[in-house]
C-alpha cells in the first residue's frame, strides 16, 4: 500500500499539507489551473474537461484549448529532451527513437474526430452509473500530424507472427497496485492509418493531450489513442491488461461480462450546435447546424425533424475532407413564431447504420449515440 508520506512526496507536497483536513488538497491546487471558458470541469484531478456545444459550434476545427480532456491518471511530467520511444517485441530491429528523430521521419497529416467512449454516459437512463458523467461534449475534431505507425514499424522490421500492437504510456496512478494503462490494436489497423501524433492543431502536441507523443487511431473511440506513449510493442496476442481485458466492454443488463463485445470503432452520431437548448430565436427561416461523424465508415446522410420524428428532412452536408473527420451539417427551415419547438437530428454512416432514438444502455455507459434533441422558443 502507498503510504501517506510517499503519496504526498509523489504529488510534490510538503509535510505541512495534509490530505484530510489540511489547507490545500491536490484537486484544489490543480483546480487553479483554470480551463478556458467553453469547458465544463467534470473532474479536476485527473483532468476531465468537456467542451460545451456552444464552443464546439464555433468552428469545424476544435481549437486545442477547447478540446475535451480525459486522462486516466493525470498528465505526467515528462522531460522531453530525455524522452524516447521504444519499439520492441516481435521485431527484428528494436528501436529507441528521440523526439527529434521522430520529427525527421516522413510526417502524415490527418483530420480526425476523437470521441471519449463514455461521451453521453450521463444521459443514459440508468439508476446506477459509474465514471464521469459526460453529456455531449467529450468529442472534438482536430488536425493531427506525425509519423504513421506503419513507417515506424517498417523500420523496426516486424516479424510475421506479430498480430497486435501494444501501447504503453508514462502516466501512473497514485496507488502502485493500479495497473498501468495499456491498450492494443490489431496489426491491420496499426498499419492502415494509425499515427504517432507529435502535433495537434498546428502546434506541438500539448501535454494535456498526450504530449510529447500520443497514438491516434482514426475512427476508434478515444481510449485506443494512448496518450504519453513511451513504448510500442509488437505481439502475437491482444494485451491482457486490465483496461483491455476488463475495461471498455459493452456489458448490457443481465448479460455475461465475459462475452461482452469490446469498445472499438465509433458509432455514427450527430450533434446540434445551433440553436442551443433553451434559446430564443426569431421566427421565419431558422438556421439549424451541427456536426456528424461515423467512425471509419464516415457519414452518408444527416436528417432533421421538427415534429418529434414523424417527418425527417435531409440537411446539407459539407464536403467529406476525411472519412474520420466530422462533417458540418446545416439546414434552413421555416418555423411559425410564438411557440416552443424542438429539433432532432440523426445521421447515417457509410454502412447504412443510423442513430437510434435511444441507444441501448450498458453498465459502463459506453457508446451513447442516441438522437440529439434541442428545445427552443421562437419569438
Amino acid at each position: 500500500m502507498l503510504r501517506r508520506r510517499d503519496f504526498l512526496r509523489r504529488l510534490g507536497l510538503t509535510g505541512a499539507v495534509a490530505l484530510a483536513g489540511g489547507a490545500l488538497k491536490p484537486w484544489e491546487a490543480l483546480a487553479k489551473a483554470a480551463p478556458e471558458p467553453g469547458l465544463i470541469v467534470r473532474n479536476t484531478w485527473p483532468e476531465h474537461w468537456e467542451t460545451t456545444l456552444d464552443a464546439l459550434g464555433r468552428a469545424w476545427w476544435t481549437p486545442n484549448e477547447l478540446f475535451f480532456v480525459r486522462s486516466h491518471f493525470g498528465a505526467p511530467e515528462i522531460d522531453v529532451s530525455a524522452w524516447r520511444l521504444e519499439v520492441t517485441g516481435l521485431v527484428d530491429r528494436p528501436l529507441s527513437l528521440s523526439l527529434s528523430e521522430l520529427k525527421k521521419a516522413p510526417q502524415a497529416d490527418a483530420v480526425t474526430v476523437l470521441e471519449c467512449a463514455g461521451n453521453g454516459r450521463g444521459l443514459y437512463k440508468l439508476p446506477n452509473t459509474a465514471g464521469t458523467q459526460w453529456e455531449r461534449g467529450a468529442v472534438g475534431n482536430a488536425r493531427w500530424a506525425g509519423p504513421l505507425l506503419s513507417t515506424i514499424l517498417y523500420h523496426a522490421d516486424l516479424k510475421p507472427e506479430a498480430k497486435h500492437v501494444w501501447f504503453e504510456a508514462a502516466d501512473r496512478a497514485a496507488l502502485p497496485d493500479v495497473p498501468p494503462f495499456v491498450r492494443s490494436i490489431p496489426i491491420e489497423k496499426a498499419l492502415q492509418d494509425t499515427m504517432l501524433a507529435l502535433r495537434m492543431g498546428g502546434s506541438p502536441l500539448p501535454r494535456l493531450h498526450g504530449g510529447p507523443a500520443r497514438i491516434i487511431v482514426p475512427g476508434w473511440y478515444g481510449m485506443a489513442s494512448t496518450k504519453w506513449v513511451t513504448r510500442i510493442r509488437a505481439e502475437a496476442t491482444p494485451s491482457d491488461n486490465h483496461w483491455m481485458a476488463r475495461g471498455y466492454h459493452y456489458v448490457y443488463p443481465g448479460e455475461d461480462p465475459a462475452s461482452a463485445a469490446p469498445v472499438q470503432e465509433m458509432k455514427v452520431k450527430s450533434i446540434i450546435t445551433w440553436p442551443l437548448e433553451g434559446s430564443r430565436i426569431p421566427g421565419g427561416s431558422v438556421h439549424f447546424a451541427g456536426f456528424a461523424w461515423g467512425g471509419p465508415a464516415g457519414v452518408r446522410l444527416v436528417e432533421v425533424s421538427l415534429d418529434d420524428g414523424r417527418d425527417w428532412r435531409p440537411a446539407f452536408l459539407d464536403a467529406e475532407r476525411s472519412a474520420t473527420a466530422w462533417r458540418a451539417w446545416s439546414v434552413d427551415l421555416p418555423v411559425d413564431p410564438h411557440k416552443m419547438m424542438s429539433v432532432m437530428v440523426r445521421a447515417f454512416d457509410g454502412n447504412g447504420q443510423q442513430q437510434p432514438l435511444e441507444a441501448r444502455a450498458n453498465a459502463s455507459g459506453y457508446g451513447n449515440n442516441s438522437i440529439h434533441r434541442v428545445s427552443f422558443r421562437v419569438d
Partner: protein
Amino acid sequence: MWTRRAWAAVLLVALFAAAAGSAGDKGPPRREVYPAQFPDGAGRPLAERYCAICHAPTLVTQQAKDSTGWEKTMSQMEKWGIQPTPAEHDSLRDYLVSHFGPRVR
C-alpha cells in the same frame, strides 16, 4: 388580480429557465458541475482519506450506485491498494450509498 394568461406566461418562462439550466450548453460556462467536497456525514473523513488518494471528490459526487454497486467499486479499489478496516469499509459504503445512491430518472 392576475389573469389565467399571465399565470400561463409565468409558467412558460419558468419551464424554459429550468430547461436551460439543466442542459448546460447555454449561458456562462460552468466551472464545476458537482460538489467539489464530500458532504458532511460520518463517512466523510474516510472518503477523504481513501477515495481522494487517486482522484478529486467530484469523481465520486457525480456517481450514483446502490449498495451492490458501491461494494463492487470499493472491492476494486481495495484490490488496488486502499486498506480500510472492516468497520471503515462498512461505514464508507453506507456513507456513499446514503449520499450517492441510485438515481431516480
